[in-house]
């Protein structure tokens, strides 16, 4: 029983720590964002409380000190710096490591933690002297800290101070405010900085241009702010302009929080509360058919800006409300339960194929109709189940942000990671296997692509390099692009290296694309100096292999001096796919439908006139093809008319000659197992309706094999 709670605790802690990493990294770029600091504090506070509760005293004690540091940040006695972020990130990593141990934690790990804390305390002593004086807890070394936190953990978790509240802020500056040198924009920015804020300017008072006095202020502002800071913080913003403006600060009672069923406030309620309209006028307006806002404006009861301002508030409250709601709308499920569900659905799909086959043989209308309905349901069930396993790829992006941060400082470079399309969804298993290849690509970009700050300045670029990570859907695939604005690939260096490695003859010319693809060859590196990061030529070939295994493809684009883009094309899922069932002799194969372009027929006579030229015209393009019968050493005679399935592999088309294209097939992919590890061109197997096994083709690998063999044949012939 305890174990169950412990594992729930760990799961929660992993998630909190992963969030914490995000928050810290975000905080580095927005060091003044109080909301972020509060979020970090809350996360660490929760870890501290629950770790103490489950007997992880070491974690609890360690976390206590980190919490203290964050508390100083909250009360403003310690400012957020890159150095502090570095330390807290390390502390986070340490907590993550501690979670792998049970009490008692090995001495050397504790020692590491104490060393880290010593650095943190030293930093606080240096950067926040006030903090040291006012917080004796910080001076207490780990053993005492342990005691203190253990006490605290016994009680129910204390309410975190600074629960967020929403305020309505009215700012009506007098027209002469500019003459005093007050920057109104700064005030508004300060308000926005306090939390989640929406500002609405009322510009209705601005006169025609000829009567406008440029030194007067005609605008007023309404803001809605959700903050943990409290009312006084808002007053503080306006402290120097109190006699220059009319300031109104009101707390909005979010009824929805007390009574979640009530939903968000209606526009009328807000207007009445604001005193913009009386309840009577509102009721009168409501009796007409038009939208409330329009009616009120038409009747000149309120002005248009007032309506818009109120609508903004409504929108804001809705957002705040939704954020609260979102938590309750999801449930946490162990991932192996999901995997089991996917397996079961897979079995159902297989069984359904059998049912269909049987029904076809029975030729019974009643059974056929049931089978059809059954198929529709199962197909929906399949899609729904697969969608449960879909995760936004953004969950892995944070890891990469950290990689960029750590590696760039190690290399003495300046770089930031910009992510796009973080909410693009992919099967969990695919995301898990994408992590390593992406890390390799990003490291490669940082090491080879991004130049040192001085070199970048000389080249007319900003000191800070940018690595962009973008993901988006494209049919049944996801495109993931990693681009940098570094120096790009060096064509000549790659060429020379290829000749040196014997991959290229000295006189041989290659298309740019083919040449660049050589960096995916094993042990290929043009780095002159071997660093800890790269230069040993491991990496890009690993990327290629992993992506191939996922059934995806890799493409490279580069411009000298401008940067490089690596594009990965990955199938959405690996477990159940739509396939095209084909037959060769008595053997069945499945080609993933996502890579199929089309099918064409080819007669024997056509074949013979073509002779050895294994090329066919398809939509105005010459496409090389391969006979799967020959390639797989199948027995039997070729039929009079063969069919060619045109597929896309590595961004090029290739044709596969088969005896017959049978049709679409929902394919539950089963692994072939380790014994068939060295078999190329087959990515798995599936069970057909009659219970026999069909093999699933690995189109990318097959295409490469075809190319390789064609090249060898050419070399032998020449």
């Amino acid at each position, binding site marked *: 029983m305890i174990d169950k709670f412990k594992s729930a605790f760990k799961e929660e802690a992993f998630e909190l720590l992963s969030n914490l990493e995000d928050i810290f990294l975000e905080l580095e770029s927005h060091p003044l964002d109080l909301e972020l600091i509060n979020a970090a504090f809350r996360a660490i506070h929760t870890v501290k409380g629950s770790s103490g509760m489950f007997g992880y005293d070491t974690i609890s004690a360690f976390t206590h000190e980190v919490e203290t540091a964050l508390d100083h940040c909250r009360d403003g006695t310690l400012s957020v710096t890159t150095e502090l972020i570095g330390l807290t990130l390390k502390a986070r990593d340490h907590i993550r490591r501690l979670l792998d141990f049970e009490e008692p934690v090995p001495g050397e790990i504790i020692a590491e933690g104490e060393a880290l804390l010593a650095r943190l305390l030293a930093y606080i002593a240096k950067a926040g002297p006030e903090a040291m004086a006012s917080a004796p807890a910080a001076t207490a070394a780990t053993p005492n800290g342990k005691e203190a936190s253990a006490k605290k953990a016994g009680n129910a978790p204390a309410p975190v101070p600074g629960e967020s509240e929403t305020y309505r802020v009215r700012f009506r500056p007098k027209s002469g405010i500019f003459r005093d040198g007050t920057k109104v924009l700064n005030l508004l920015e300060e308000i926005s900085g306090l939390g989640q804020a929406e500002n609405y300017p009322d510009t209705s008072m601005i006169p025609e241009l000829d009567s406008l006095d440029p030194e007067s202020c005609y605008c007023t502002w309404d803001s809605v702010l959700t903050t943990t800071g409290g009312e006084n913080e808002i007053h503080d913003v306006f402290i120097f302009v109190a006699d220059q403006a009319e300031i109104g600060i009101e707390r909005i009672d979010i009824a929805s929080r007390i009574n979640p069923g009530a939903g968000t406030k209606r526009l009328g309620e807000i207007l009445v509360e604001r005193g913009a309209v009386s309840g009577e006028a509102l009721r009168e307006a409501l009796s007409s058919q038009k939208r409330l806002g329009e009616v009120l404006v038409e009747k000149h009861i309120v002005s248009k800006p007032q309506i818009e301002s109120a609508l903004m508030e409504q929108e804001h409250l809705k957002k705040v409300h939704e954020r609260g709601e979102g938590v309750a709308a999801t449930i946490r499920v162990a991932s192996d339960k999901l995997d089991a569900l996917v397996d079961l659905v897979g079995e159902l799909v*297989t069984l359904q194929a059998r049912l269909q086959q049987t029904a076809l043989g029975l030729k019974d209308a009643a059974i056929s109709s049931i089978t059809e309905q059954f198929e529709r349901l199962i197909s929906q069930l399949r899609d729904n189940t697969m969608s449960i396993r879909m995760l936004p790829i953004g969950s892995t992006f944070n890891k990469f942000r950290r990689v960029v941060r750590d590696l760039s400082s190690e290399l003495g470079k300046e770089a930031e990671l910009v992510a796009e399309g973080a909410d693009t969804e992919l099967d969990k298993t695919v995301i898990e296997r994408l992590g390593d290849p992406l890390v390799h690509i990003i490291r490669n970009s940082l090491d080879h692509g991004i130049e040192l700050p001085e070199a970048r300045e000389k080249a007319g670029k900003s000191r800070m390099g940018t690595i962009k990570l973008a993901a988006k859907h494209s049919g049944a695939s996801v495109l993931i692009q990693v681009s940098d604005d570094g120096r790009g690939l060096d064509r000549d260096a790659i060429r020379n290296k290829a000749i040196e490695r014997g991959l290229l003859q000295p006189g041989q010319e290659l298309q740019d694309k083919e040449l660049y693809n050589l960096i995916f060859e094993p042990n290929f590196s043009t780095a002159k100096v071997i660093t800890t990061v790269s230069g040993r030529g491991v990496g890009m070939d690993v990327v290629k292999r992993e992506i191939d295994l996922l059934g995806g493809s890799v493409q490279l684009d580069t411009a000298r001096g401008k940067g490089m883009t690596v594009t990965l094309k990955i199938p959405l899922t690996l477990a159940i796919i739509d396939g095209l069932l084909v037959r060769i002799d008595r053997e069945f194969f499945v080609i993933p439908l996502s890579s199929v372009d089309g099918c064409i027929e080819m007669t024997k006579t056509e074949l013979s006139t073509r002779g050895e030229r294994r090329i066919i015209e398809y939509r105005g393009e010459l496409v090389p093809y391969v006979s799967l019968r020959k390639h797989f050493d*199948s027995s039997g005679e070729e039929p009079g008319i063969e069919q060619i399935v045109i597929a896309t592999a590595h961004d090029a088309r290739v044709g596969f000659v088969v005896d017959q294209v049978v049709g679409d097939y929902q394919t539950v992919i089963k692994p072939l*197992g380790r*014994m*068939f590890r*060295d*078999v190329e061109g*087959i990515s798995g*197997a599936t069970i057909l309706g009659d219970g*026999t096994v069909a093999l699933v083709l690995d189109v990318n690998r097959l295409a490469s094999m075809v190319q390789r063999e064609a090249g060898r044949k050419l070399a032998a012939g020449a």
Partner: protein
Amino acid sequence: MESEQSGRYLAFDLGGRLYAIEVERVEVVLESAAITRVPRAQSHLRGVINYRGAVIPVVDLRIRFGEGETATGEGTSIVVLQVSYGGEKVTIGMLADSVREVIDMQIDAIEDAPRIGSRIDDSLISGVGEYNGDFIVLLDIDEAFKAEASAEAR
């Protein structure tokens, strides 16, 4: 190694010789199953079959022993059993010309056994016994895959 052991074994014919394997390893004996050939796989891997919804390999030990291919047809059985492959338990199907029965017998360790005039590598034999007056060879089936698994690791 103990000089003798006794237990329950499954006896089967393969290439005109009698073999035995420990009965605990055997999950089931399939009378017939459609084997799907895997092109370009190692020759002793005859293909894959559907075994209770999973896809498992079918091995032909005769090819592994270098004695030619086992003919598949009437009477050919597939013995589904667990082997240790590179430290992992793997379920495989093994072709047998025919399966006899489960027997209790005593196995003499290989050191004590007379030469049986087999071309089979001694390392694949963990002992010999007597069954109805004939020699019966106890196979060390894990050993048969050891070399392969370690070759893969390399």
